[in-house]
């Protein structure tokens, strides 16, 4: 059997929860290969010719949507973007109504960004296509996690490591509402890293230690000790009015990433952020722009390669599944 088929047999990418080490490895390996395409003179390969990818975005995210769009196009897939603005009341209905239309287009892969946790799981029950979760509610954002992993992997050597085993990673800020935090915690634990969540108690998920197998710190100084990687999370400013936090000023004072706090980490520690950054809220400008530490721009570049890899695995995987169904029918 082709070893690659062995490594990735899933029809959908719904989350990092439950992915095995070799499955994560398979995507990261392909992403490495696809990254080269983006530095060629002709940035296009015929890999997904004849495949249809639909980007279905219920939340504004130019960055993620563009990244998926470009990823599909560079592999010669037909890419369709649907941006559905959704009033919160009719959100669910809209999704179900859209589904029939989508099914008629017979897409190979649907990339879904939606404000409700579990929306992509819902889609898998009503559509034949492979589904990529491009962020669902407060649940998961697996491609963001994969690009974070690829970015960390690129810097293993500076850390004196060959893999993620035993690496200390701090995920800081609004963990409760962060899909990035969830996906990264699941994936990093699977890969053998030690993970901590750092942030105010109101922004921690219930039973986090048990669910994610991590440590929780409410004190930023304590949480940053000895870490190799810091993943800062974006703070949704509406949290203030919802009484999760008293003010931006107080938040930055206690949980903002400053140069002094960065000193507490390993000298090689990487600073990551899923973007866009609220400067002076979760991270000080001089830290965000520090070329020796901040890898925020590398993250963006790696996003494209990871999404190419994911589309590749799901398109060809979904095709395999369809072929098998055809044989048995």
């Amino acid at each position, binding site marked *: 059997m082709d070893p690659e088929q062995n490594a990735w047999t899933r029809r959908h990418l719904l989350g990092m929860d439950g992915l095995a080490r070799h499955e994560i490895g398979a995507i990261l390996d392909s992403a490495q290969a696809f990254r080269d395409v983006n530095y060629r003179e002709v940035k296009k390969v015929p890999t997904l010719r004849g495949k249809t990818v639909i980007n279905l975005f219920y939340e504004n995210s130019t960055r993620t949507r563009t990244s998926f769009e470009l990823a599909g196009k560079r592999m010669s897939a037909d890419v369709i973007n649907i941006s559905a603005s959704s009033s919160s009341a009719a959100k*669910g209905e809209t*999704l179900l109504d859209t589904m029939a239309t989508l099914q008629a287009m017979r897409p190979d892969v649907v990339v879904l960004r939606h404000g409700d946790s*579990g929306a992509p799981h*819902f889609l898998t029950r009503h559509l034949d296509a492979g589904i990529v979760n491009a962020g669902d*509610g407060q649940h998961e954002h697996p491609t963001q996690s994969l690009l974070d992993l690829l970015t960390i992997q690129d810097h293993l050597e500076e850390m004196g490591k060959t893999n993620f085993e035993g690496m200390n990673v701090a995920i800081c800020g609004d963990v409760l509402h962060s899909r990035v935090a969830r996906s990264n915690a699941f994936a990093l634990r699977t890969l053998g890293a030690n993970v901590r969540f750092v942030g105010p108690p109101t922004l921690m998920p219930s039973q986090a230690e048990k669910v994610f197998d991590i440590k929780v710190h409410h004190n930023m100084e304590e949480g940053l000790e000895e870490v190799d990687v810091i993943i800062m999370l974006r703070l949704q400013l509406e949290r203030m009015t919802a009484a999760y936090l008293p003010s931006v000023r107080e938040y930055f004072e206690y949980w903002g990433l400053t140069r002094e706090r960065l000193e507490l980490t390993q000298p090689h520690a990487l600073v990551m952020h899923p973007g866009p950054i609220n400067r002076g809220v979760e991270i000080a400008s001089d830290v965000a722009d520090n070329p020796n530490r901040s890898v925020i721009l590398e993250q963006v570049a790696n996003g494209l390669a990871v999404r190419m890899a994911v589309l590749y695995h799901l398109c060809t995987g979904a095709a395999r599944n369809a072929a098998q169904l055809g044989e048995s029918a």
Partner: protein
Amino acid sequence: MMRVESLFIRGARVVDPAHAHDGVADILIVDGVIREIGKLAAPADIPVIEADGLIAAPGLVDMHVHLREPGFEYKETIAGGTRAAAAGGVTSVAAMPNTKPVNDDPSVTGYMLDKARMAGFANLFPIGAISKGLQGKELTEIGLLKAAGCVAFSDDGLPLMNSGIMRRALDYSRAFGALIIQHAEDSGLVGCGCMNEGEVASRLGLPGIPNASEDILVERDIRLVELTGGRYHVAHISSGGAVASVAKAQEKGLKVTCEAAPHHLVLNDTDVGDYDTNAKMAPPLRNKRDVHALQEALARGTIGVIATDHAPHEEDSKRVPFCHAANGVVGLETLLPITLELVNQGVLPLSKALAAISCNPARLLGLDRGTLTPGCMGDVVLFDPQEQWTVTSQALHGSSKNTAFAERAVKGRVKYTVLAGRIVHQEG
């Protein structure tokens, strides 16, 4: 001529928890009323049910049902809902007032009673609203509503959050001996939560609802019962903490009771699985420790009633992402088998289990039902306690199929449901 409201049931195992009776006997129902139970000779002119191997119990009483009519007939009608009741062996249902219009006026009560009488599948006992329009602001005409046929009062679906109004409701209702039923969830703590707060919610990224939301409101209400001396009942209790509070209040001699729903007694938050909207209800499915605490409280008698919170929803209300799905599940047709599951698991003996779905709720609501006493209405359920079947949505009789027990293998099959001597359901 055969008398249709008369019936002879031969050789059933008669279990009547109201009198701690359990033994093989014949039941004679004449003109809709139980005439005699014992070793009898069948009269010549009335139909006979051969009930060898079946258990005959009082027709079941479900004190927490949503029938959706008037106003939400696309979810369920009184005829459809009582048809489902009959299929589940339930001969008496108490219907919650969150209809449109709300049952906060005697005319609505009368309308519901007429509809049920015309349908003829089960006795309907309406529950009136505590506050006008379920707004939580002004008390309803509790006296007039009771005179029109309301057997208890509740704003179910919505908690009565205002302590002052709750105090008045408990106080005022004493004049009529009326029971106040609370949907106990502190809405500030529920927030935008859509499942139990805990490991599963954290993993699924769904906003959680802590047990404290229920514990706090039950504790508050118990203080108000102490203050007023009213009769207070907690609907669909779900948390171990709230059950402990009820037990303490009962020890003090306060008129505090509670019911648990079958789903809270056997399912837990892991049954949400991959965002299964049929596992979404209010209060939510709690964790295994709470389920265990509920079962123990049922065995001890702190929880005296099992009530389904039967809440039909059309498919579209459930075919949406989890957070947007309507709360609630249907339960009338799985009430008996799930209750028997608790018996088979050794949680409580058969007679006590049947009491929780017959005489106990009847007594709380002041109904002369839920017993096989001669002179009482001939409402009987005959079931085979051994027959196995699998719950499927196709097997359900109501309009809505939102069951939390789909694909569950259960034991105990209703064979006949008899309402005032008339067979209203017979298993094929």
